[in-house]
């Protein structure tokens, strides 16, 4: 008799599960605290995907900060490798850390990169009352006394935010990397707060992270690491103009678990393409200081292979890895 009851309950539950799973929402993991670049990627792309009808249910965003994205990467590789309903925000920082073997031995080929649909220009900023008026002021101060300037960024030491500083200093002829002081915080917002409070002297980050504070006038952006000035922020000089030839943009993109099928992969690529072509995304890019940068699917995977090799070489050159 109990068996019969169980069977009936089972049948009922089976139907409801079948019904529910069709409307199951996908998840986007932002491997940082809310407010940072990865968080923006998940929220904006996730929202647009739903708004333009590329997915049936709203995409649920999970924040998983830690280890410069390594926590989320390890989770995807180890525990969610076959999950077709999972996308993860990625950026240049992800590639950098993979190139430096900083995800505890995990490698770039353990997930599949979907594509990038925008790039966030790298910046160096200081508090509004800082004595440093230009990038060269700041670099001269580091050259004179490396201990006098601490940089804060939203990624761990050796991460992309850190590398930008080291590259800029390297171009200016300062190569004593061990002397450069850098603290990694749990996101761009925290880093800016520390700079405004005067605990650190400069912030290295991305344009999207400073827009709010730029508007309120609490910080001053010394340089943007792009080839040309960023539309909408025309009064901010590039590093190139100031004689520091560094271009460092932080592309915004996604990766998915390795274990999903080719079809599932292509479905996500198409969804991302729709977002990239949407008006909503173009608006979002403008309001967040992103420059256009679209590479999808296999093109992106090829591009990334090259980037990772380059960063690995660069990291060896500047002594970040052996």
């Amino acid at each position, binding site marked *: 008799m109990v068996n019969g009851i169980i069977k009936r309950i089972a049948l009922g*539950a089976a139907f409801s599960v079948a019904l*529910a799973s069709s409307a199951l929402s996908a998840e986007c993991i932002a491997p940082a605290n809310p407010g940072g670049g990865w968080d923006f990627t998940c929220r904006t792309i996730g929202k647009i995907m739903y708004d333009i009808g590329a997915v049936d249910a709203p995409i649920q965003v999970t924040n998983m900060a830690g280890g410069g994205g390594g926590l989320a990467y390890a989770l995807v590789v180890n525990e969610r490798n076959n999950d077709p309903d999972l996308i993860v925000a990625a950026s240049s920082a992800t590639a950098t850390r993979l190139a430096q073997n900083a995800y505890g031995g995990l490698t770039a080929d353990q997930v599949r990169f979907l594509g990038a649909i925008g790039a966030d220009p790298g910046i160096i900023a200081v508090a509004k009352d800082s004595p440093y008026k230009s990038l060269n002021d700041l670099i001269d101060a580091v050259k004179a006394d490396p201990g006098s300037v601490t940089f804060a960024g939203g990624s761990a030491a050796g991460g992309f935010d850190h590398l930008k500083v080291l590259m800029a200093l390297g171009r200016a002829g300062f190569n004593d990397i*061990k002397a*450069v002081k*850098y603290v990694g915080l749990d996101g761009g917002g925290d880093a800016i707060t520390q700079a405004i409070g005067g605990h650190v002297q400069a912030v290295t980050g991305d344009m999207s992270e400073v827009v709010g504070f730029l508007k309120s006038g609490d910080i001053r952006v010394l340089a943007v690491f792009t080839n040309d000035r960023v539309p909408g922020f025309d009064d901010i000089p590039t590093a190139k103009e100031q004689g520091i030839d560094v271009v460092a943009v932080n592309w915004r993109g996604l990766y998915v678990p390795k274990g999903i099928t080719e079809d599932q992969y292509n479905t996500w690529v198409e969804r991302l393409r729709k977002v990239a072509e949407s008006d909503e995304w173009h608006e979002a890019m403008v309001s967040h200081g992103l420059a256009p940068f679209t590479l999808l699917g296999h093109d992106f995977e090829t591009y990334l292979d090259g980037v990772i090799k380059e960063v690995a070489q660069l990291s060896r050159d500047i002594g970040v890895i052996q």
Partner: protein
Amino acid sequence: MSDRLFGLAVIVVALGYILSATQIQTSFLSDPVGPKTFPYLIGGTAIICALAIILKPDAEPDWPSLWTFGKIGLAVLVLVAYAYALKPFGFVVPTAVAAGLLSYQIHPAAKSASLTGIGLSVGLFVIFKYALGLGLFAFSRSWF
């Protein structure tokens, strides 16, 4: 005596902890404290406190009988089995079995225990899945 044994165990674990902390990779950059200092401090503090406990133990607690320990051990086994069963077999069946067994341990009456198991399993599934929207699977995915 129990306190002293516990103190000894803490010392052994803390020493092992400090030993494994010596293996932590250090960084290449400006990081005066480094990733090892804190684990050392924690291990060291634990050892000092453990010595204090060994020297000045509290009164002996009332340990349960072996029979009771056996019962608790059985409950642990049920929970461990449940932990392993959730993924392959879905929510409903393992929950019914585990809840039923626990219930039986607390109040040995087969009928009420099995009803508790089934009731909890189905009821909780409905609440978690539909009221709170958690991503649970009722049954093994391979069954369909």
